């Protein structure tokens, strides 16, 4: 086989119905964002690696494809859009009235070991960022935008959005006076819901067995009762404040009658170094991993010289396309429905194209029948 026929792993084509579906989903997302007054922003595909290292944290940024610029500085194919948006907010848009509302649909590129499910190195994301607005109303605004997109995709009944506040974990970690290594260990244990390991960990890090004995990770996920459960076990003020914030948020969700879509999951502790408050993940039946994630990142813009609150999320368009493609009524390989063929009348090329232009003016689909066509 010719090596030119090979495609690099984790890359793919989109064609026909699948390509149209992805564009439709993307347009749908952007229409919803527009409906909530978010302005489209396109960020550079290639940027300095240092931007992403500051923006995403070293661990995540490491997955970027890297190059060197002509002057030797390190460049990266953008592994995320938020870093770039945050920089723009703090610099280019410094003089603008707050809050800023940005949205985008863009490809991001990340290296990942092949063993993982849904291995993609290019993935298309639609996202929005609300910069310069703190507090509950901003959090709810972004959550409702995500909900609206999923509703419009006809996925409402199969969607679950999990909510957490990273300060619950941070408070615990502070209370236990964990160093960086131990903190990461606890994060990993909670992240994989490894109950027995957590009991062990807490026994090891606390003198008294009382709080550890009652910790059951299964109890960390559910609806409002999770907060009450957590309040019986967690007493440090930092975690308590985060639980209060979650409780208030849940109160609003209840009033909006959206509780069927949401769940509180205190075990969602991924991305701790990035987010500063609310975090959420979006799951949809038919997708084996999450199709979206977001949260509050109040400390990000300070990297670019201006501290201000911010919240946002991204939806994974490849995963959404896959889910919706499976339930659509057509074959993935089905080609575009083509228009009525126009045949060249007796060597009259001008006549042929005059007719074609007329039909196009009427917005009809045309297909020129080429000479060598069967």
């Amino acid at each position: 086989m010719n090596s030119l026929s090979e495609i690099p792993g984790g890359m793919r084509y989109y064609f026909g119905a699948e390509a149209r579906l992805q564009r439709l989903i993307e347009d749908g997302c952007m229409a919803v964002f527009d409906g909530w007054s978010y302005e489209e922003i396109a960020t550079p595909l290639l940027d300095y690696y240092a931007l992403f290292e500051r923006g995403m944290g070293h661990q995540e940024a490491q997955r970027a494809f890297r190059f060197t610029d002509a002057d030797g500085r390190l460049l990266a194919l953008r592994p995320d859009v938020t870093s770039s948006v945050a920089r723009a907010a703090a610099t280019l848009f410094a003089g603008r009235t707050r809050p800023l509302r940005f949205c985008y649909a863009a490809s991001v590129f990340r290296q990942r070991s092949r063993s993982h499910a849904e291995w993609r190195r290019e993935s298309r994301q639609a996202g929005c960022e609300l910069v310069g607005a703190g507090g509950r109303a901003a959090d709810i605004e972004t959550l409702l935008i995500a909900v609206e997109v999923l509703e419009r995709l006809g996925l409402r009944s199969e969607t679950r959005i999990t909510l957490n506040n990273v300060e619950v974990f941070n408070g615990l970690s502070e209370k236990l006076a964990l160093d960086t290594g131990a903190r990461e260990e606890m994060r990993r244990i909670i992240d994989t819901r490894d109950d027995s390991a957590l009991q062990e960990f807490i026994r090891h890090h606390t003198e008294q067995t009382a709080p550890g004995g009652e910790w059951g990770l299964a109890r960390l996920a559910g609806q409002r009762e999770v907060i009450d459960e957590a309040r019986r076990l967690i007493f440090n003020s930092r975690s308590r404040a985060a639980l209060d914030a979650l409780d208030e948020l849940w109160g609003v969700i209840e009033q909006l009658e959206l509780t069927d879509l949401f769940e509180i999951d205190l075990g969602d502790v991924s991305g701790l170094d990035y987010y500063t408050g609310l975090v959420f993940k979006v799951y949809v039946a038919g997708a084996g991993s999450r199709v979206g994630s977001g949260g509050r990142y109040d400390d990000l813009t300070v990297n670019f010289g201006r501290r201000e609150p911010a919240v946002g999320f991204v939806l994974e368009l490849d995963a959404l396309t896959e889910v919706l493609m499976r339930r659509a009524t057509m074959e993935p390989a089905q080609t575009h429905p083509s228009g009525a063929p126009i045949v060249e009348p007796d060597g009259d090329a001008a006549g042929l194209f005059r007719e074609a232009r007329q039909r196009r003016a009427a917005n009809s689909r045309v297909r020129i029948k080429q000479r060598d066509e069967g």
Partner: protein
Amino acid sequence: MKSENLNPNNVNSRNESLMDSMNDSVVDGEDGLSERASSSTRAARPSSFHNTSHVLTVALSKGRMQDEALTLLGRAGVEVSGEALASRRLAVEDVAGCYRFVFVKPADVPVYVEHGIADCGVVGRDVLLESEADVLQPLDLGISRCRIVVAAPDGAAAHVYGMLHVATKYPRIAAAHFGARGVPVEIIQLSGSVELAPVLGLADCIVDLVETGRTLADNGLRVVETITESTGRLVVNRASYQLKAVAVARLIKALREVTTAVESKA
């Protein structure tokens, strides 16, 4: 604008979901020239959405752990008829129809679970460490207990300051173990009978799973150090954990009750 229905404003202003408009725009040519795709093409793709049904799909490691897992499940009230097991079907359901079990090679359990094809799985910790699969591990089932060890021939030098040659079926675990100690190693990946490697001079030592240690002793090897213990674990797909929360919680609870009962007896 290629087509009316693709117009985002149009999508935005209508009450129908995007899915409806998607079907319109993809299947229907606006000039009515194209045929509506027949609904029979639907069958060309799997129509069952494993995640939406209430039956949990559980991947079990074939072999010894399979029997221990089924015994444990039986004690937790999940009955699988002997008849169904004997049928050697790819997937068998439990008597109550709450679970569908699929039997796959141990190394494939995390793969099925991470992809969400199986909601849950039962697999050894050794396999999980080696696969680095992104799955939840809510419960240590305490079955198929064994150790992952470094073993070397009796009388081998305690330290090799050059390159240590390590034969193993667990290249990642071995590399991580020696890496953390700053020992330069060459990992020689084998797929079986690892204990032969030092005997035949292929490697200085091995990293392998040990239950009783008899195989090691028979080959003149002794355990130098235990890397970690390994037991059977319940693993759960991240999406299933949220989307089938009630069913998953029920399984975890039932299994937790029987595993803690075993522990307190021991």
